[in-house]
């Protein structure tokens, strides 16, 4: 087997719209805005772009990007599936195309008006449920929050994880958001505030859930050689991984030998192997947090602590700036915005450029992860 091409592509441009409940512009428009900003940030133009990678759920097709932006010749394009599991994998696919010479400059984007749009679980057709939905929707297990709450309850049963543990996760992330002008939720939150919030799906409360947001983000990647001559400090893709474990069946998957081993456990093992490093070399992490318990589970799956220790790890203040593993330093999905985890990648880049509003000192290596409940992906980003 060939050696894995570590550090063979670099993120050289980032772009994003504002994050809000109702952005007032269509997804196609904000996708184009974010891509144009990312190219401007890099000092590149549409003429330089020969590759596009998008989420399978993305509503704006490549042809729309090509004909609006004026890309003269697109020679590489691809999709990565499974909603929130796709973000890091899309960047990974772009990096692979660059590493192999299939493309030189690739744009990855996600645009999603989920704040102003309909609620997928409320507007889903309510007659015959196909595929995996036949096993949970007829019983009213209808929202992602219900599906993750079921896993959370089991984590509480097996390990003694508490609501206060989740409260420490939510309040740590909010503390970071208070310093981030892009964040939608900047009001300080105490443990009392957290515990007083209404239930959504017991054992999860309102502040365990990500925000419903509109917004778009884009990233430009190219070769490290070309990156060295561009406007911004390059951020190298050290490694990217994807993962699906045995017998997995997306969100409401309680059918495997141990459902607490989510696809992230498999993505994590592969990530550390490909990156040639381990969790002890990571200076800060951006964990996918559609729901607060996913940070607890990720801490365990990515090897920052043993199974069952994720809650106490958060309660000891380790996720905060100055803690053992400053995490989700932008406020992320719980407090900045929920754009299918793409703002976690943005924050990873900011940490390595030294421009985070919760900057980690001497930050060299950053872990970014995508959704755990679904087939997933992850990234190690680093300074050259």
């Amino acid at each position, binding site marked *: 087997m060939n050696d894995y091409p570590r550090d063979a592509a670099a993120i050289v441009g980032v772009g994003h719209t504002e994050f809000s409940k109702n952005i007032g512009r269509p997804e196609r428009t904000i996708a184009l805005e974010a891509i144009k900003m990312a190219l401007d940030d890099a000092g590149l133009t549409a003429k330089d772009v020969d590759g596009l990678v998008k989420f399978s759920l993305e509503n704006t097709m490549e042809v729309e990007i090509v004909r609006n932006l004026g890309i003269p010749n697109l020679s590489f394009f691809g999709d990565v599936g499974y909603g929130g599991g796709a973000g890091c994998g899309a960047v990974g696919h772009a990096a692979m195309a660059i590493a192999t010479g299939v493309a030189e400059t690739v744009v990855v984007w996600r645009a999603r008006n989920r704040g102003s749009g309909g*609620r997928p*679980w*409320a507007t*889903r057709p*309510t*007659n*015959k*449920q*196909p*595929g*995996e*939905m*036949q*096993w*949970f*929707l*007829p*019983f*009213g*297990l*209808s*929202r992602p929050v*219900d599906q993750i*709450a*079921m*896993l959370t*309850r*089991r984590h509480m*049963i097996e390990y003694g994880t508490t609501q206060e543990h989740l409260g420490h996760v939510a309040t740590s992330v909010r503390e970071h958001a208070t310093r981030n002008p892009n964040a939608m939720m900047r009001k300080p939150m105490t443990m009392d505030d957290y515990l007083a919030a*209404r*239930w*959504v*799906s*017991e*054992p999860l409360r309102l502040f365990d859930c990500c925000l419903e947001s509109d917004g778009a983000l884009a990233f430009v990647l190219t070769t490290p050689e070309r990156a060295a001559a561009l406007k911004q400090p390059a951020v190298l893709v050290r490694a990217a991984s994807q993962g699906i474990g*045995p*017998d997995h*069946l997306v969100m*409401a998957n*309680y*059918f495997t030998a141990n459902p607490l081993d989510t696809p992230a456990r498999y993505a994590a093992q592969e990530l550390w192997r490909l990156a040639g490093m381990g969790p002890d070399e990571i200076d800060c992490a951006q964990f996918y947090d559609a729901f607060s318990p996913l940070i607890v589970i990720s801490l365990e799956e990515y090897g920052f602590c043993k199974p069952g220790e994720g809650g106490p790890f958060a309660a000891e203040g380790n996720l905060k700036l100055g803690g053992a593993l400053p995490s989700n330093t932008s406020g992320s999905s719980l407090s900045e915005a929920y754009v299918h985890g793409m703002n976690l990648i943005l924050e990873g880049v900011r940490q390595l450029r030294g421009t985070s509003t919760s900057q980690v000192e001497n930050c060299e290596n950053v872990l970014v992860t995508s959704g755990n409940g679904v087939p997933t992906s992850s990234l190690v980003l680093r300074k050259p």
Partner: protein
Amino acid sequence: MSSQPLRPVPGPDDASEPFWEACARHVLLLQACGGCGTLRFPPRPMCPRCNSFEQAWVPASGRGRVWSWVIAHPPVLPAFADRAPYNVIVVELDEGVRMIGNLLETPNEEIAEGMPIEVAWEDVEDGVSLPQWRPTQ
């Protein structure tokens, strides 16, 4: 015309049709590999252990224990709004497979991990019955 919001019902496919057909008769069947005998749920065309397409349908005990549960609060799907907050459970059957259902005849606050439960049928429309659960009697 009924003004009741439609309840989601299972959409059987080639692999799951025998399961739901038996449910309509209030019989709980599990799919087993016709080659190596391994039980599998949810049903699928191929055995992940031996890759056989052969299959058999075997009666389940209808007994199990609560493995996990949630209490869903509003806003929920319109078809479930009048019962919120309501429970959804994962049951671990004595055979070792897990299914999703609702625990009937039980106040939400009395649900506990490991509670012994048994199958109870809920007829939701003509020809459609769901395997549900109640405390073992």
